[in-house]
């Protein structure tokens, strides 16, 4: 019954989305165009979608094997957290989660948006409904999550063991909040273009959504990177896998948008460009969904290949992206000129920031889609991996980091004061580090070396915008910017340190043997059996020591009976200056076990940096919302 209720809620929500679209674009006559009924419909659509999603979670928690999706992806003997998270650990469930976030975002806009004029808000809600309608149709026609299975099997096929990890409960929902949060920026841009109202008001309405979505994307990518790092047991934190790129591309576009939307909100500049970025950012979310969900690319995330789904999403994609860009092209002549600015100014810096981010987005986009295009054109199968992305994206990213030494310190409109004194602290430290690193570590590569130099130089440069300000009266948004930029510096340091100083050891050893890696001596004590709720394992005991510090690592080789699968569970020991990472392989005929060990100095800075970036975003978001509230109150008081 629950499944049928969920399906019914989904159909009703679809009908409401259609109604919302019709009302917004005037099919209800002039009266129907009023925003109040549209708001109500959007909220209803959101609530019904939540109901449908709750129904899906319920059938998973109850292990209702008469639902096809549960039977194929769940198992009654699974810890409840994986039954719960398993609801979106599959194609249909994750698409339902996607649409749920989309509908909730629309409902929240309908409930709380007060900055836009009524007509623009109606048009924006209409655009949001158009997006929802397409993806509802996709769910109902090509990926119904509530399909029944008759007769019901005794038990399910289980969840892929790689996905049986707390990361699954956190990573996809966060990423989806980010992906789909960008839909609001898209819809508001469409609304503004339709109503010819592209200006600071649009930017101010869009900004909290861009910030919130960007925070979620940052957290989702950071969490996904750490998850892959400890779960896959390859010691890497970023593989340039198409699915990782699918989350990186919206993040790059959102980062550019985040910066340009500020120029529009504060100075009225970069109007057409900001609208284009808002359209591109959510388009990248949709492209990402297409890449992941069509299973079209070789990837560890590609669960299943289903051509109908791929072509369905492709049609939606063409419709939405093509439509939005056509609208932009038609209306671009009506977009007013922004305020002029000098090239050496905050705006100028942000323009270069946007251009460099766009170049990175461009090369990642081409590299990710090239295998598809090459196969379609010449039939050749190929893959584009780290050698490409590292050599084309990293230099541009480092150029962007170099720009960060100066950009945040420039004034708006024009900056004629001497720049050198403001640059000095960062530059000085950078030069010292460069010379020092060449003397100390002559052998490291050019990219990691530049990363170390820029990372250290950015630490003081990020804090510089606070100088000469009264700290108590500095807006939260500025603190947020400083914190986020510090986070970038920290993350760059982590990446550079990992690629410059990682030590790796591969050994075949017997209990009693000792292996050295970096500063560590690792003694192989023994291998013992271990067991968990739905797996058994062989667990090695490694005693690692350096100087006086001793730690014990227990990497496992796990066996899951349903479905029969073996996985490696890496053991990681975190200390203040890095991580020791151990993987247990198989035993050979002579009783030797394969061991793979890494010492990764300061690798944790990568994820710490990601968290700082997200925290900076959160501060900025709070600051903006708080300030708006104060202003609104002040305006209301003035009227009374």
């Amino acid at each position, binding site marked *: 019954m629950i499944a049928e209720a969920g399906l019914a809620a989904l159909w009703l929500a679809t009908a409401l989305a259609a109604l919302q679209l019709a009302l917004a674009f005037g099919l209800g006559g002039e009266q129907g165009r009023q925003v109040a009924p549209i708001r109500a419909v959007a909220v209803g659509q959101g609530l019904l979608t939540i109901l449908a999603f709750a129904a899906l979670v319920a059938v998973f928690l109850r292990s209702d094997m008469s639902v096809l999706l549960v039977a194929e992806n769940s198992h009654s003997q699974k810890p409840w957290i994986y039954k719960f998270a398993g609801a979106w650990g599959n194609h249909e469930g994750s698409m339902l989660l996607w649409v749920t976030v989309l509908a909730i975002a629309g409902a929240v806009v309908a409930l709380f948006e007060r900055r836009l004029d009524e007509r623009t808000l109606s048009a924006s809600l209409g655009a949001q409904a158009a997006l929802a309608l397409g993806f509802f149709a996709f769910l109902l026609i090509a990926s119904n999550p509530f399909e029944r299975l008759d007769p019901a099997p005794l038990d399910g096929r289980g969840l*892929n063991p*790689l996905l049986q990890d707390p990361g699954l409960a956190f990573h996809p929902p966060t990423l989806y909040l980010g992906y789909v949060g960008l839909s609001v920026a898209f819809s508001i841009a469409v609304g503004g273009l339709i109503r010819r109202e592209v200006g600071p008001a649009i930017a101010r309405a869009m900004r909290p959504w861009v910030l919130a979505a960007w925070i979620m994307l940052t957290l989702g990518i950071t969490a996904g990177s750490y998850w892959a790092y400890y779960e896959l047991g390859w010691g890497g934190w970023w593989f340039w896998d198409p699915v990782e790129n699918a989350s990186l591309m919206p993040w790059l576009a959102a980062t550019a948008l985040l910066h340009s939307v500020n120029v529009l909100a504060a100075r009225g500049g*970069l109007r057409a*460009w900001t609208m284009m970025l808002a359209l591109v950012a959510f388009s990248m979310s949709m492209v990402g969904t297409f890449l992941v969900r069509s*299973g*079209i690319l*070789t*990837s560890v995330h*590609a*669960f*299943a*290949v289903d051509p109908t789904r791929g072509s369905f999403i492709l049609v939606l994609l063409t419709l939405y992206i093509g439509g939005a860009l056509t609208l932009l092209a038609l209306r671009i002549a009506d977009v007013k*000129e*922004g305020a*002029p*600015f*000098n*090239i050496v100014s905050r705006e100028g810096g942000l*323009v270069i920031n946007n*251009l*460099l981010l*766009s*170049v*990175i*987005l*461009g*090369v990642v986009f*081409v*590299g990710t889609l*090239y*295998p598809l295009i*090459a196969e379609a054109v010449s039939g*050749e*199968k*190929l*893959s*584009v*991996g780290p*050698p*490409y992305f590292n*050599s*084309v994206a990293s230099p*541009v990213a480092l150029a962007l980091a170099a720009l960060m030494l100066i950009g945040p310190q420039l004034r708006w409109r*024009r900056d004629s004061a001497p720049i050198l004194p403001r640059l000095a602290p960062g530059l000085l430290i950078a030069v010292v580090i460069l010379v020092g690193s060449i003397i100390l570590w002559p052998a490291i590569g050019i990219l990691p070396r530049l990363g170390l130099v820029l990372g250290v130089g950015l630490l003081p440069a990020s804090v510089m915008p606070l100088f000469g300000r009264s700290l108590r009266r500095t807006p939260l948004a500025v603190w947020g910017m400083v914190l986020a930029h510090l986070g970038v510096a920290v993350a760059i340091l982590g990446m550079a340190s990992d690629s410059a100083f990682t030590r790796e050891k*591969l050994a*075949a050893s017997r209990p009693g043997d000792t292996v050295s890696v970096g500063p560590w001596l690792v003694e192989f004590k023994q291998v013992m059996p271990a067991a968990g709720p739905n797996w058994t394992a062989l667990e090695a005991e490694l005693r690692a020591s350096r100087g006086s510090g001793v730690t014990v690592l227990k990497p496992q*080789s796990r066996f899951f009976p349903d*479905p029969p*699968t*073996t*996985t*490696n569970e890496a053991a990681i020991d975190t200390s203040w200056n890095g991580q020791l990472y151990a*993987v247990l*392989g*198989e035993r*050979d005929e*002579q009783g*030797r076990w*394969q061991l*793979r060990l890494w010492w990764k100095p300061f690798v944790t800075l990568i994820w710490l940096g990601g968290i700082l970036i997200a925290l900076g975003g959160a501060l900025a978001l709070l600051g903006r919302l708080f300030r708006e509230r104060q202003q609104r109150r002040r305006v209301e008081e003035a009227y009374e």
Partner: protein
Amino acid sequence: MTVRPKHQRLILAILAIVALVGAVLLAMWGLQDRAAYFVTPSDIAAGKAAPDKAIRLGGMVVKGSLRKDADGLTNRFTVTDGAKETPVVFRGITPDLFREGSGVVAEGRLDSNGLFVADNILAKHDERYMPPQMANEAARK
């Protein structure tokens, strides 16, 4: 130097186009020799894979071909696509589901003697977890 508004928009548009063209040129330069082609043992036998270029080799691990060197870490095996065979060497821990008689994709290079030196092994998990490329290869047979 303050630019007049009209010119400013023009300059911004030109900058955007330059960035776009730059990105495409950079990408094309990068793709020239950094894309790894997916080959089968038959492709290698036909001389389609140049030595020392990054490629991905796909096929099945021949039953009875897997051996370990005395160091306990170097794996040697043969990959077949049903028609031809290619010898592969890989030093490291093989993935959990790597075994004789099942599908495999190896990333690496061909040396001058026709031996495939793999840096990385991607083994298939279950049917639902098969990389699409390998599924296509399997379907072709």
